[in-house]
């Protein structure tokens, strides 16, 4: 299924980097618009962590092709991105942003824990740095899901709606594709099946505490991490994100 020139380290780094980049971008869209000042600060913090991780992962992803992290971030079109569909989804209301973060963090932290034991030292090094940040992200988003799920009737309804809306995009990370299989075989990354139990346990624990009902369907959209069919939202995000680099090619900033 994979072509001969498959570069496992690059493939893993690209997926991790694109997730961090695109989610970081989405979160940064909140700037100055959060419901409370403390949230403005916290969201900026998460965005900062994620952009920092994107720099590391994309730096690694570009190594073999001699590309910089910036070139990868700003000069690829949508189809060359390898982020999960979940992270591309528009922010929606604050509840949806929180829920998206939680669903991603719950996977992200398990994935990074697995990557800390990667056979590839450049990967485990980045993962060890990132996992400390993401532990905190998960702690925070879990607490928020619980607070907003528990809070008022309205907030509970909004959080359930957010969960129901996002659920079909949550599963992609946990369904193995040929790249995942190859990476697991080489000991580069944990297999999705190895990540799933921890992810599920987190979901059950937090959503239970938040009195939110886990949707029953296990249907999951696919096409983000393999780039085969992103959602329309990604292209619109790129028109903003890449504007300056596209409009003024070759300039340094």
């Amino acid at each position, binding site marked *: 299924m994979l072509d001969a020139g498959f570069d496992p380290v690059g493939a893993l780094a690209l997926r991790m980097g694109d997730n961090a980049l695109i989610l970081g*971008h989405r979160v940064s*869209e909140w700037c100055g618009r959060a419901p409370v000042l403390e949230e403005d*600060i916290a969201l*900026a913090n998460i965005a*900062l962590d994620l*952009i920092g991780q994107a720099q590391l992962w994309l730096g690694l992803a570009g190594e073999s092709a001699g590309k910089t992290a910036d070139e990868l971030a*700003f000069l690829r079109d949508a189809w060359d991105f390898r982020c999960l569909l979940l992270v591309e989804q528009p922010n929606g209301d604050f509840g949806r942003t929180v829920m998206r973060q939680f669903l991603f963090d719950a996977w992200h932290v398990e994935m990074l824990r697995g990557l800390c034991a990667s056979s590839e030292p450049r990967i485990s090094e980045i993962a060890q740095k990132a996992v400390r940040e993401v532990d905190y992200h998960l702690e925070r988003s879990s607490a928020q899901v619980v607070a907003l799920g528990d809070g008022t009737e309205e907030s509970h309804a909004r959080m359930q709606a957010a969960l129901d809306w996002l659920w079909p995009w949550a599963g992609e990370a946990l369904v193995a594709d040929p790249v995942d299989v190859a990476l697991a075989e080489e000991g580069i990354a944990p297999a999705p099946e190895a990540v799933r139990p921890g992810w599920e346990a987190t979901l059950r624990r937090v959503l239970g505490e938040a009195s939110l009902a886990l949707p029953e369907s296990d249907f999951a959209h696919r096409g983000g991490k393999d780039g085969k069919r992103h959602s329309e939202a990604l292209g619109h995000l790129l028109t903003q994100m890449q504007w*300056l680099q596209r409009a003024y090619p070759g300039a340094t900033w």
Partner: protein
Amino acid sequence: SPQEAAFQDRIDAGETIEPQDWMPEGYRKTLIRQIGQHAHSEIVGQLPEGNWITRAPTLERKAILLAKVQDEAGHGLYLYCAAETLGISRDDMTEQLLSGRMKYSSIFNYPTLSWADIGAVGWLVDGAAIMNQVPLQRTSYGPYSRAMIRICKEESFHQRQGFDIMMKMAKGTEAQRRMAQDALDRFWYPSLMMFGPSDAESVHSAQNMAWRIKINGNDELRQKFVDQTVPQAEYLGLTVPDEKLAWNEEKGGYDFSEPDWEEFFAVLKGQGPESAERMKARRDAWEEGQWVRDAMSAHAAKKAARREAAE
């Protein structure tokens, strides 16, 4: 009154007033207005820069800008806390901002139209802000003074980052140089306005200076800002948009044109180019966030009740 005289003596002796101390009502009110306005400026000030976070040209620039805007939110937080020690809540101040009874710095009603504007905001706007704020580290009200000390440390960092962007632009491609000049053209006079109208026209100046809420005169600070900034513009190879600008050997400073004070007062009235958008953004954030704030307090209350019930 003797109380007032004793209060003034403490200030004159360089003492710091703390929240639990007696203070004249005018002192308290003026401070609330001034600190509140400063806090609101930090909050609204996130918007013009936030406007370019999603278009920042490199990952590093994006991170730096995010960190800067985050710092500003943090400054807002310090300042709201300082104002709260004077007996007004953050929510009250926010309501007053949204209803237009409290103001924020007029500079944030101008648009950021190119990446160079992000540089200009750091270089000129933060530069002017620092000039205003450094003396306020010695202001008479303790919580305010301590907030200013923290803030000034970060602001000078921001100003250097802004200047660094301007450097890159001014030494960059022709389009980048043009952006840099255009940014200076648009932000020069609004920056000069940040020091407020000439002291001659400023009503409360004398009392505020006696209270050490205001330390320097507006014109004095403006002159200092011009004297500091003009050589930087020259270093960047940019032209300050003022034909009258000239070094005055006698006074040891630059002669320069006054900004258009009519524009200043119009902007204060809400006629700045982005005034309506800024207020709308804040109002939307507040209204759309209501359910979140409600839920958070409801959850906190429930948690407390559960804890109590368990005891």
